[in-house]
């Protein structure tokens, strides 16, 4: 076993976590940047193979299991992590931010490095905890938002767990375990219930339609530096997990991806909050990736992962640009500030390159991966999917036209303080990546799974004309719908239904049940009290039971008569009553038993 294989990247991050606690800020941050860059370098040189294993609950966990997919994920996660840490450093974030950011990145690295489902589930849930706390750090309204985020991910994680359990049973295995390797990634998750449960569970993290409301909600709430971290890891880990679950594709997944591309772009168009707009675009772009993976062909999968790689770069760049605006101006919404114009060139540059990449303009990385995806779709001959992808692209062009227009061109010109040099460096790195992998995409192909098997040559006339047509349609769409968009403040999404339902429904149920139990409890207590009174103070019980007219006479009787009941039984009557009772008991014993 190669020595490199025995170093789990998550372990490197764990070491960084420990150091970040003891070192001062000015040392901890640079060290973390270097450490994460080292993780990315590790991914580029580590060979295929399996590293250490660990026995957990009877199953064999493969802590490090490297193939081309893992290598790609670790490389981009590590590289982007280093840049996100750098952004946070230059945004004057403190050490707690570093700690929880690193925890989140470390858990994500674990999740994409393990070679079995149980290990993945462990990483999945730890990512959820780390990101929840990370969001909470921002305080204020982020706290309630983080709570909703935690609830969504608790449900998603449990569904994934249930799916893996169903997969285990479908394989004919159970616990106590006879074959500890049964949960290693094999040919995906078993069909049927397992696939559905796991699909929905992973889908929560991937923001599939219906389970996605946490995404715009959460990514727009915390500090700008937090959002830069968040935009990368959870959703992309879900795409990776979808591949592991369905390595041969899944047509439902492909159509869901197509639907997400349209839905996300449409809702993004309606947003005024910058980060909400970008978050809906995460959903749309993840939709693109899922189309590729759902198709299941080598080009589709390669395209999906290429898009994942590129997306991290340009979405990170876009969140950085939005973050720079927020840091400079202290506002979240496009209609809260005037036209930045050219007063902040770094911010403008970041936005432009990010927007050109996400829309897929030739010369930038998005163009290459989108071309791979559309080629894969046309190779399958699926017209509906192609139309969905086109509509998603048009929507993307429209919403970035909107973003650019409102941020930089519309309103009173204002003078932003531009980003500092450190942020400039982060922007340069990300932008450079976008341009590099757009022009010299061969480099990306070397890192891609199936990269050597697919032919990628997107710079031909027909393709460029296609992009031009989509761009035109998008800009026209924006111009035409501007009056309508002005009046939309985010639209009504599914959470307007499920959030009140969850809150009021739970309150009603617990209140209703509590009321019921309370009533029963009160009844029981009343009976007990009645029994107690009957024994100690029969007169009270009796006067309570009498009609009002007789109560006075009874009270007088009680006062005059010794004893507690107000009645007198003479000796003879007492004896007769006692005798009858005893006789009855005797009869029961003698004759019935």
């Amino acid at each position, binding site marked *: 076993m190669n020595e490199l294989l025995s170093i789990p990247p998550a372990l490197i991050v764990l070491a960084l976590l420990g150091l970040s606690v003891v070192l001062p800020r000015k040392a901890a941050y640079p060290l973390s940047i270097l450490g994460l860059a080292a993780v990315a370098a590790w991914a580029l040189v580590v060979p295929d193979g399996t590293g250490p294993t660990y026995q957990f609950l009877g199953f064999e966990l493969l802590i490090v299991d490297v193939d081309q997919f893992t290598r790609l994920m670790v490389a981009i996660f590590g590289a982007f992590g280093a840049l996100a840490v750098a952004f946070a450093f230059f*945004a004057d974030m403190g050490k707690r931010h570093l700690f929880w950011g690193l925890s989140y990145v470390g858990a994500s690295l674990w999740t994409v490095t393990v070679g079995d489902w149980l290990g993945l589930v462990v990483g999945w849930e730890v990512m959820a905890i780390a990101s929840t706390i990370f969001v909470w750090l921002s305080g204020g309204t982020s706290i309630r938002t983080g709570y909703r985020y935690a609830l969504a991910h608790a449900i998603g994680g449990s569904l994934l767990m249930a799916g893996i359990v169903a997969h285990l049973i479908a394989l004919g295995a159970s616990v106590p375990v006879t074959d500890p390797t049964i949960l290693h990634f094999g040919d995906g998750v078993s069909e049927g219930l397992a696939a559905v449960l796991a699909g929905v569970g992973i889908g929560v993290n991937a923001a599939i339609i219906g389970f996605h409301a946490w995404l715009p909600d959460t990514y727009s709430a915390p500090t700008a530096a937090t959002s830069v971290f968040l935009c990368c890891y959870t959703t992309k880990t879900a795409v990776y997990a979808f591949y592991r679950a369905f390595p041969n594709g899944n047509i439902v997944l492909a159509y869901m991806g197509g639907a997400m591309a349209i839905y996300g772009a449409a809702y993004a168009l309606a947003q005024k909050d910058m980060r909400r707009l970008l978050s809906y675009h995460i959903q749309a772009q993840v939709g693109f990736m899922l189309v590729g993976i759902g198709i299941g062909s080598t080009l589709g999968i390669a395209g999906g992962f290429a898009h994942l790689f590129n997306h991290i770069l340009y979405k990170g760049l876009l969140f950085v640009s939005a973050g720079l605006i927020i840091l400079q101006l202290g506002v979240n919404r496009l209609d809260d500030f005037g036209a930045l114009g050219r007063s902040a060139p770094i911010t403008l540059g970041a936005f432009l390159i990010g927007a050109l990449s996400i829309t897929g303009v030739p010369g930038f990385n998005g163009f290459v991966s989108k071309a791979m995806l559309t080629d894969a779709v046309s190779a399958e001959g699926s017209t509906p999917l192609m139309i969905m992808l086109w509509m998603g692209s048009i929507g993307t062009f429209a919403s970035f036209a909107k973003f650019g227009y409102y941020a930089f061109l519309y309103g009173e010109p204002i003078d932003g303080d531009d980003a500092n040099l450190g942020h400039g460096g982060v922007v340069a790195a990300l932008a450079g990546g976008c341009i590099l992998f757009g022009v010299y995409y061969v480099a990306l192909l070397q890192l891609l799974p199936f990269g050597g098997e697919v032919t990628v040559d997107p710079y031909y006339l027909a393709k460029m004309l296609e992009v031009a047509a989509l761009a035109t349609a998008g800009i026209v769409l924006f111009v035409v719908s501007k009056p309508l968009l002005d009046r939309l403040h985010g639209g009504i999404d599914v959470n307007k239904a499920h959030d009140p339902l969850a809150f009021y429904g739970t309150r009603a149920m617990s209140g209703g049940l509590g009321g019921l139990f309370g009533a029963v409890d009160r009844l029981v207590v009343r009976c007990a009290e009645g029994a107690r009174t009957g024994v100690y103070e029969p007169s009270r019980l009796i006067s309570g039971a009498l009609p009002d007219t007789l109560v006075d006479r009874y009270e007088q009787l009680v006062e005059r008569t010794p004893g507690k009941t107000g009645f007198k039984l003479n000796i003879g009557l007492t004896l007769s009553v006692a005798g009858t009772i005893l006789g009855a008991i005797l009869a029961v014993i003698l004759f019935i038993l």
Partner: protein
Amino acid sequence: MSVRPGVVLLLVVVGVLAIIASRNRPNVREGWTLVTALGVAGVTASMLPGVLDGYTYETSLGTFVDGFGADGIEFALRVDELGMIFALVSSSLYLVTAIYSIGYMRGNDEHDQTRFFAMLCLSVGAALGVAFAGNLLVLLIFYEVLTLATYPLVAHEETEEARVSGYKYLAYALTGGLAIFAGMVATVWVAGDVSFTRGGIEGLSTLADDDPWTARAIFALLAGGFFVKAGVMPTHAWLPSAMVAPTPVSGLLHAVAVVKAGAFGVARTVFDVFGPETVSQLGLGVVVVVFASSTILIASLFALRQDNLKARLAYSTIAQLSYIVLGLGILAPAALMGALLHIPAHAFAKLTLFLCAGALYVQLDVKYISQMPGVARRMPVTMTAFAIAAFSMAGLPLFAGFVSKWHLLIGSADAGYLPVTFVLITSGALNVAYFWPIVYTAFFESPGEHGGKPLLGYPFGGKFVSSTPGKKAKKHKSDETALTDGGETPDKHEDEVQDKQEDEAPDKHEAHDEDGGSTTVTDKSNAEWDRPESRFGETTLLMLVPIMVTGTLVLLFGIGADYSGFFELIETIVEEATVGDER
């Protein structure tokens, strides 16, 4: 024939007497508690290697009741794998709680400490007796001793409320004991034997074939009686009332010893009286599953509305205990494993939660969740342990709760109980729903700025209470910006000097339970808890070290469950019990 089981119980008796004898010298008395706890834990642990090898330690004190079956009913103590699990959990956690109790009782300046420590020791001894019982009669005897020994602890405060709770507790527990007694008598009548036999008593399997309804009635009596102590609804009401007891009692007894004794009784009934095969044949598994599932969901819903921290933990205990009963009802091997794994997993986590609640009460007089915003600043180690235990309750991996939840999920899928899978998923989400607010309010809110608790008692979306008058939470524009621009994050204060000293606790306020919105949350204008004086100085080490120990156990069990003795013990039990199954 071995003396060790008997020695353990003898140590307890000696300990109780010694505690009473040294009542006028508190330090000596506390010393006796610790010595007894160490001795008991030590002797119990010494039996572990033997039990892992398959040896069963037996102490028999002769025939107790003549005339039934072959040799009558013996007063037999038998330490087998199942008993070992419960005994290990109880004895080790008694040691931890004993240390904690010293800090708690002194910190709170409690009265009648001798009675407290003596009865605590006796209760644990009774729980160990339940664990070591070799047959139903001995188990029942110790079960009732447990009830009687814990009664003075429940009513310890001697207030009206405490007495009423004590009577309620006695009423419930003794009625349950009566049901068990009836069941036991019936078993002796029918099968002639009440000794615990792995896989079930012969006579009962025959009865199940010949006369299933009688067998079902006996099971109902036995299991129903044990359900009372296990907090299964509707016989659960004694548990929230019993929270009036001092916190070490709530923790060790009502989260570990007493309620687990109930669950243990159900486990003995399923494994060693009837046997899983017979229970399945009689169709009783479904009934148990229904009771357990409804308890889990309803108790979790109730927990959401409690403002009193211990009440919320009590309802959580009710729900979590039913995880064990649920596993015992599903009857698949994985589910049985999950149920037994939950005994230590829940014990470690729930004890941590209660010890933290007690520390908050003693140190800061904090009883209600609505008093807790920002309290992690004052008690960081305590609240970190609380958070770890809360994550375990929700079944998150790396924490103990995941170990049992994973097995229960597999068991429910294996046995084909799809609704149970959804019960477990919902329960996990509900756990998050009622534990996370406590965690986030302690760490990330402050007395001057927090949303109202309990969440369901306040408007949808939260009501943001801020110290600056007139500043309401708006959904957009300026109020959010102070946080999003990165300049005002809590991080900033980290590198600054410590805040100036001020009054510790914000002003007290009325409790806020259930519904109703007339609570006032008094805010001081720059209210913030002070930081503790030194790293581990937030409360007495007598309380802090046990909290850290149990919190660490939660993590150790969560990561290394395979390597703790528990896993091996449980695999053996389940394999032996299900040997006859066609699976």
